[in-house]
């Protein structure tokens, strides 16, 4: 039920967003539609030519006139045009559709990346990095079917049958009527099919992700399962989950397929009915029209050849329907990022800091986009070179305060840097003078030197070594056979958590920033390692204006001040005293 609630409140939202996305590629998509309609017209012409050809032959052979090849030769050029023209049109239609889809997808990715860059450290409110990247890659690619097939098919499903009925009407109003009688069923079945298929695929997707979740959960814990000798029981659980998934999705599929089977049945029935009506008519034994031939042979054959095509687009739409459901599900996932209210840091002033600045917060108040409170109003100031810690229960807005200082979050009240309001500063310029460190460090799968040069592109080797010496990593790295050129694995694999944070500290040192903002840099480290890192930060950050968010004050006895954010009256506690208490 939970997953369905957002659907109920905004039923057409993903559909609207999809439509907006398609807007930029309308030209290509409409051209694709035009090609498809032209192909339908060629098909009508092809049937007309063939019907004429066979009618000529039939009459000739009936009357004993020898059939000559002249008739075929006359028809041949236009017939060949139709026969070869349709695949060519189809080829270009596919090409245009894919081009449109690729344009939309890559521009959507750019858009999403811009939104994430705009969110900065707050990006993780939309998911962890793994799920963000699968949103940007897989979920965006999941739109392909909708853009490249479903969009054109949705129009074709109305246009093609209409064209065919018009052509048939010329020869036999009754035959057109037979098709039209079954056609009301077209919109009806579109709705039926649509609802059934949408609900079915939605449920199926949910079930599938639940089953995958169970599988993933167990595989991730494989080491533990092996330890406990429980792998056989777990394999049984995997088998049971898959079995349950099959049973439940089979019952859903039965319904979903049934609706398309009914459609199929009407299409088969219409062809059979037409064949009988036309055949009996040609024999002159229709009960209501004895001895009369209501539709002559040429027309009859023409109609018969066209009839299967009447339902073909609808059948195609039915099988493409899951593309739409998939795209809507993907849009649901992406829309929180896309709908992020873009906030632009307005200032233009270039403030270059030559020494650690004085920072003053006056009634700083941060609200979320939904106007919920993220940080209750707070005022305090830090002297030039002052070093403070922020504490408080999770969710009290400690990180948001840092994000505001970084220039990523709009706020109310004032932040003054050496008496200059922060919003008046040019954001890029301001950010270049900041050092920021979070729980997980910014280490790429590259060499140690390259990682350090990410922070300072033109640092000399001497400077790198000096920074590493300061963070006490040089003795270790010196001993490695490749030294500075040792390549680290994904997310810095090869170094321990504490060593990685030291490397991150070396990056900060190379920037020589005057303001340090640290967001729980030791949260994932054990007590002893955290203690040593805290001490190291104390040694290296002398003379900087520093704010650290930390749960534990272990090793932070060098702080000037600890500020608790849960208390409405901000309490100022001397750091050393607090640690002892």
């Amino acid at each position, binding site marked *: 039920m939970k997953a369905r609630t957002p659907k109920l409140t905004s039923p057409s939202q993903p559909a609207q967003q999809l439509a907006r996305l398609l807007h930029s590629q309308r030209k290509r998509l409409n051209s694709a539609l035009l090609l498809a309609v032209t192909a339908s017209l060629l098909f009508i012409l092809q049937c007309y030519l063939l019907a004429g050809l066979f009618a000529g032959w039939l009459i000739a052979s009936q009357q004993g006139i020898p059939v000559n090849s002249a008739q075929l030769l006359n028809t041949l050029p236009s017939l060949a045009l139709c026969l070869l023209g349709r695949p060519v049109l189809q080829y270009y239609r596919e090409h245009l559709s894919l081009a449109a889809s690729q344009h939309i997808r890559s521009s959507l990715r750019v858009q999403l990346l811009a939104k994430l860059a705009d969110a900065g450290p707050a990006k993780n409110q939309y998911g962890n990095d793994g799920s963000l990247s699968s949103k940007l890659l897989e979920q965006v690619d999941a739109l392909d079917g909708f853009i490249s097939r479903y969009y054109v098919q949705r129009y074709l499903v109305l246009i093609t049958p209409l064209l065919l009925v018009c052509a048939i009407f010329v020869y036999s109003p009754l035959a057109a009527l037979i098709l039209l009688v079954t056609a009301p069923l077209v919109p009806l079945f579109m709705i039926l099919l649509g609802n059934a298929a949408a609900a079915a695929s939605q449920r199926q997707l949910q079930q599938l992700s639940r089953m995958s979740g169970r599988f993933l959960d167990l595989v991730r814990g494989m080491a533990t399962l092996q330890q406990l000798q429980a792998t056989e029981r777990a394999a049984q659980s995997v088998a049971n989950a898959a079995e349950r998934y099959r049973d439940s999705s089979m019952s859903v599929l039965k319904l979903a397929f049934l609706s398309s089977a009914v459609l199929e049945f009407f299409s088969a029935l219409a062809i059979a009915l037409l064949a009988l009506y036309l*055949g009996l008519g040609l024999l002159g034994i229709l009960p209501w029209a004895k001895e009369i031939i209501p539709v002559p042979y040429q027309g009859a054959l023409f109609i018969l050849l066209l009839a299967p095509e009447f339902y073909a687009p609808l059948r195609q739409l039915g099988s493409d329907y899951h593309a739409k459901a998939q795209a809507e599900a993907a849009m649901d996932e992406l829309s929180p990022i896309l709908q992020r209210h873009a906030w632009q840091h307005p200032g233009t002033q270039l403030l270059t800091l030559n020494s650690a600045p004085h920072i003053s917060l006056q009634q700083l108040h941060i609200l979320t986009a939904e106007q919920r409170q993220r940080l209750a109003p707070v005022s305090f100031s830090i002297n030039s070179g002052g070093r403070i810690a922020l504490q408080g229960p999770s969710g009290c807005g400690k990180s948001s305060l840092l994000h505001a200082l970084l220039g990523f979050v709009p706020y109310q009240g004032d932040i003054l840097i050496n008496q200059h309001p922060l919003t008046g500063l040019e954001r890029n310029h301001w950010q270049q003078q900041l050092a920021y460190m979070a729980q997980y460090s910014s280490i790429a799968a590259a060499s140690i030197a390259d990682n350090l040069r990410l922070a300072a592109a033109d640092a000399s080797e001497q400077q790198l070594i000096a920074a590493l010496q300061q963070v006490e990593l040089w003795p270790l790295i010196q001993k490695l056979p490749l030294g500075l050129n040792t390549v680290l694995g994904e997310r810095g694999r090869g170094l321990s958590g504490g060593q990685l944070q030291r490397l991150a500290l070396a990056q900060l040192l190379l920037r020589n920033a005057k303001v340090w903002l640290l967001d729980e840099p030791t949260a994932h480290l054990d007590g002893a390692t955290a203690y040593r890192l805290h001490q190291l930060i104390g040694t290296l950050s002398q003379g900087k204006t520093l704010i650290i968010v930390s749960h534990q004050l272990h090793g932070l006895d060098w702080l000037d001040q600890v500020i608790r954010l849960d208390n409405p009256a901000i309490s100022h506690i001397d750091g050393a005293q607090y640690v002892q208490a």
Partner: protein
Amino acid sequence: MFKPESLPTPERSIRLRSLLHSRSRAWLLALLLGLVTLLAAATLLALSGWFISAAALAGLASVGAYGFDYFRPAAIIRLCAIGRTAGRYAERLTSHYAALGLLKDLRVHSFTALAQQRHSNRHSADTLQHLVGDIDLLDQFPLKVIAPWLWACSLTALVLLFWYLLAPTLLIYAAPCLLLALALPLLTVRRAKVLAQQDTDASTQRRTLLLEPLSMLTSLLLWQRWPDNINRFSGQDKICLNLQLRQQLLISRTALLQQSLLALSLILLLWQGSALVANNLLSVPLLLAAMLALWALHEALLPLCQSFIALGLSSAARDRLNRLTDVSAATPLNKPEPAAPLCLNVNRLSARQSGALVGPSQLSFKLQSGEVLLISGASGSGKTTLLQTLANQLAFSGEISLNGLPYSEWQLSNTVGYLPQQADLFDLTLAQNLRLAAPTATDAQLWQVLDDVALSNWAKSQPLQLDTLVSEYGAAVSGGQARRIALARLLLTQRPVLLLDEPFAGLDPATTAHLLDTLLARQRNGLLLIVSHQQLNVPGAKQLQL
């Protein structure tokens, strides 16, 4: 309808050919039903055409209703209409049933294969996410490769037979182009395989190029390095899109050529047919039926054009799956289990985590039953690596021997119990999580062990008690509690050797003391090795500083 098969034994790696074996009857039925459906559709079209032409001929000749048997063709037409509908419905149900069964088999297969690996914990979450995706890709092989080819070949053979029965010369003129159209997609095999492989590699590369900058977004923004990182990602994205385009082009071009060949075949059929009609060797209604049969073949031949892209993707998925689930050497299970009293002897031991730059080196110590070893040392000094080595999870140099025999000579899975720092809890209830270790444990035993790890009060305060859902993301369980649940689970296995990595992290002194007492009592006759950064007061314990 089908009996659930027993779990397959994952001795060999997955082969595409054998994908159809485990569910052979279901697949056979699905393939047969699909064939019947296509045949019914072709017959419906051809017979309807013949019927109205023959009727027109009879009508013109004034034979009228008296000489023309219209009941039988009409009945067959109706039969085909029903056959087509019912056939497609049944085929879709059966093939989905079989595909879902295949999915189940593959999941169980790869799970069991992973379970047989000794060091499966090295796979990152991302790799495992891919594993799930790869398994889902494999059902493309029967659905998009085998079935279309089988149907297309059988139907083509039937159409050719029909033409032959009408007039052998029809076959001579029209068959070559038709056969070429059938065989044409075969030319794409190698190209498609290469493209699928490139596609897989490029996608992996693209993922890395996105994931890395994303994980360090804030710093990159501050350092003004975000744009060039994202440009690199966008460049790779273009490469991926371009590969996709080339796959699509391959499919589209094959389809275009195939349709042209079919068109040529149709024209040749009409050309030869008109000559036959002129010589009264073939009637016009039958020529029409011959042409419509060819027409109906389009539906069966078109899916072939993309079959080899699907094949390429399936085999790439299979390769990755086999690489991941590769069981290098099955360990023989007839080794003896060590008996108490135990004596652990470690001599000049060195070990590294895979990819790690440093690790413990040249360690030596000795431990007897009833003794406790407390291991301490700075972060990165290799405490965890040491425990993993002693848990028989890492390769090492030096010697570890138990009761005088080297580690490798013992069957240790019932002897050594290891509690890692990051304990895995599964998305199951508390009781189910605990019973993973001891399936037959009574509720009373579960309560006892929860009491031992000082969790029974917490469990009693939960509304569902033992049936409380504990998952990694469950709000009810904190990190410290999760660790203690994992410890309780480990204690249920009653292993004589316990290796515990930071079991007291985040606990208050009273709970730590209670837990330590329990552990000492339980391991009175076994070995207890504890890694901890806290000072622990254990009289008589050996100390190891790394």
